[in-house]
């Protein structure tokens, strides 16, 4: 074991504000993660989960950490231009991974609901986090999650007590602002819903300019018995940016999780979703829509573990690829030996608009139980000529007709976004992206 971090990641390991010494348990977790990073080293394409992706460009860029204490100054024009029209939310804004009180508007919270910034919690009520931080993700973490654990900036903490119901959604906005040097932000979020609690979270990644930077975020989501969480994730990073998300989900008995992942931005956007059922009769619905054009790689890795019987999971991801766009869908559903009556359906459909686009899709079921209902399917296809002719015969130009068919393909996922106001923004964004895409 070497004492050095793998080249390129040295500054990632330094926690923001170097809060070391504040909490012994946290220091221990960070040290452990840093050790792990050193042990793991930089993965290459021989590693199974990195088969289709090279980290070369990320390492060559050499993203560095920037300690930004006055993040409000980075967004002088304010937040208005980035809000979703008509959305009434409890809003928390992170700028380059740091909490911005000025841009946030948490509003009144009902009893039993606590929402705030991670570092504030660490100061005001560290005990509330002690048993929760790193609990879902566990001590063995993959490289980027370990980097985040060792050197996270700030993030969102949502704690709902037993039976607490939040009517308005929580909106987490990540704003990226370019700095003099390419920098990395490592936001870290924790959402814990106790028994019977209900909430909706809207997470949006937005960049102010088309700049080069890296976001390496980790979310831990813990759903107690009978808890419900709706989670809309809209990733619209800069077309040059690197975006990495590790989303870790633990579901107790009878809980419901519905996540919709919209991936539009980033030169390389990797999302790992690791979901585990720890109680029976829980339901998990993971949906995704990604668009990849020139110089873009949309990279999804799903790992759903049915560790107990009687749970239902659905994984449904759709992609539209054009130009020289690339995508990876690496989905795995594991059904443990005792996880009888598991119901799992995984699907990945891709619409290829150019012969230069590429998708590597690999849905896998690993089933050790004998009484289960599991399916998986994948398609890679082109725009249907009959459909295209039908639309053109009604007067639509070929490019408008193609765009309409693409939106139709994407519609199923967009429709499943929990909040209508967000749905509209996404439909508009997808439409705009397709309009500027070379579809002909």
């Amino acid at each position, binding site marked *: 074991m070497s004492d050095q971090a793998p080249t390129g990641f040295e500054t990632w390991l330094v926690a923001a504000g170097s809060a070391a010494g504040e909490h012994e348990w946290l220091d221990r977790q960070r040290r452990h993660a840093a050790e792990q990073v050193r042990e793991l080293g930089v993965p290459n394409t021989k590693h199974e989960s990195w088969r289709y992706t090279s980290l070369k460009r990320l390492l060559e860029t050499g993203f560095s950490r920037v300690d930004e204490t006055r993040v409000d100054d980075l967004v002088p024009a304010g937040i208005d231009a980035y809000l979703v029209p008509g959305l009434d939310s409890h809003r928390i804004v992170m700028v380059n991974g740091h909490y911005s009180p000025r841009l946030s508007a948490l509003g009144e919270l009902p009893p039993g609901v606590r929402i705030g910034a991670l570092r504030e919690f660490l100061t005001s009520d560290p005990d509330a986090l002690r048993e929760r931080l790193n609990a879902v993700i566990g001590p063995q973490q993959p490289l980027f999650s370990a980097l985040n654990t060792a050197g996270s900036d700030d993030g969102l903490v949502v704690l709902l007590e037993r039976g607490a119901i939040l009517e308005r959604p929580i909106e987490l906005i990540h704003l990226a602002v370019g700095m003099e040097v390419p920098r990395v932000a490592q936001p870290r979020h924790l959402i814990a819903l106790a028994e019977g609690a209900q909430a909706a979270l809207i997470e949006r990644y937005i960049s102010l300019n088309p700049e080069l930077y890296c976001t390496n975020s980790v979310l831990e989501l813990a759903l107690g018995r009978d808890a419900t969480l709706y989670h809309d994730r809209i990733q619209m990073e800069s077309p040059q940016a690197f975006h990495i998300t590790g989303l870790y989900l633990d579901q107790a008995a009878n809980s419901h999780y519905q996540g919709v992942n919209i991936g539009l931005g980033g030169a390389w956007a990797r999302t790992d979703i690791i979901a585990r059922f720890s109680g029976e009769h829980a339901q998990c619905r993971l949906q995704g829509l990604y668009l990849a054009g020139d110089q873009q790689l949309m990279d999804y890795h799903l790992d759903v573990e049915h560790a107990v019987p009687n749970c239902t999971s659905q994984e449904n991801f759709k992609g539209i690829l054009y130009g020289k766009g690339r995508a990876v869908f690496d989905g795995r559903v594991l059904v443990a030996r005792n996880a009888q009556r598991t119901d799992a359906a995984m699907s990945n459909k891709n619409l290829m608009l150019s012969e230069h686009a590429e998708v590597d899709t690999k849905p896998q079921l690993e089933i050790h139980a004998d009484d289960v209902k599991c399916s998986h399917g994948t398609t890679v296809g082109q725009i249907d000529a009959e459909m295209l002719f*039908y639309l*053109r*015969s*009604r007067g639509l130009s070929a490019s*408008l007709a193609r765009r309409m068919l693409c939106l139709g393909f994407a519609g199923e996922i967009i429709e499943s976004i929990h909040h209508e106001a967000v749905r509209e923004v996404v439909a508009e964004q997808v439409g705009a992206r397709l309009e500027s895409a070379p579809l002909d």
Partner: protein
Amino acid sequence: MLSVNGLKAKVGETEILKGLDLEVKPGEIHAIMGPNGSGKSTFSHVLSGRDGYEVTGGSVLFEGQDLLDMEPEERAQAGVFLAFQYPVELPGVNNTYFLKAALNSIRKARGESELDAVTFMRLIKEKLKILHLDDSLLKRAVNSGFSGGEKKRNEIFQMALLEPKLAILDETDSGLDIDALRVVADGVNALRSPERSMIVVTHYQRLLDYIEPDHVHVLAKGRIIRSGGKELALELEEKGYGWVLEQEQAA
């Protein structure tokens, strides 16, 4: 309005249309009848600009313009409408969004302004009534999960909305029960006007009981072998296609 002269077309290596002539004047309804394989659908498809057909001879002029030289959307924008024999299902494509895009594309091509949402919805509701269609249709995806009758009514509804100069109805009666047929025919009749011409392509005479044509043509082996008034359809119904084919051979 439409002049078809000596039209020849093939699919792959097979010649389907072998010199077809047809003259349609404004306001006229022409029925084109013929046995299976006579080239009826090929003719509709060639007029609407579908891929997969190679025109090897002849000409088609629509209001003096060379129709065959136009893209499918240009033909629609010029006022040609094809009611499909098998309307295509477009999952995920919202009907209202589609109709609005179609209407505005055509209006734009004609140099008219695009309709705002309110005016558009008013127009839509008015046209829905003609076809006895329910509002719920507007929220659904185009033709997706529609019954056969709903699909055909949706075609005529689009025609009502787009107000073409020339409508080609390709076996609109196929797959319809008598009630659905009547609704579709009523819709078509409501759209008859001195400026609007129609070509009704059908295998059976039954549709012509409801949509009364000015002219009836028999298409066989890629050519029109006989033309007449509406009484020709009745004669065909009675004597079958064999009768005209024999006469043709004897001639």
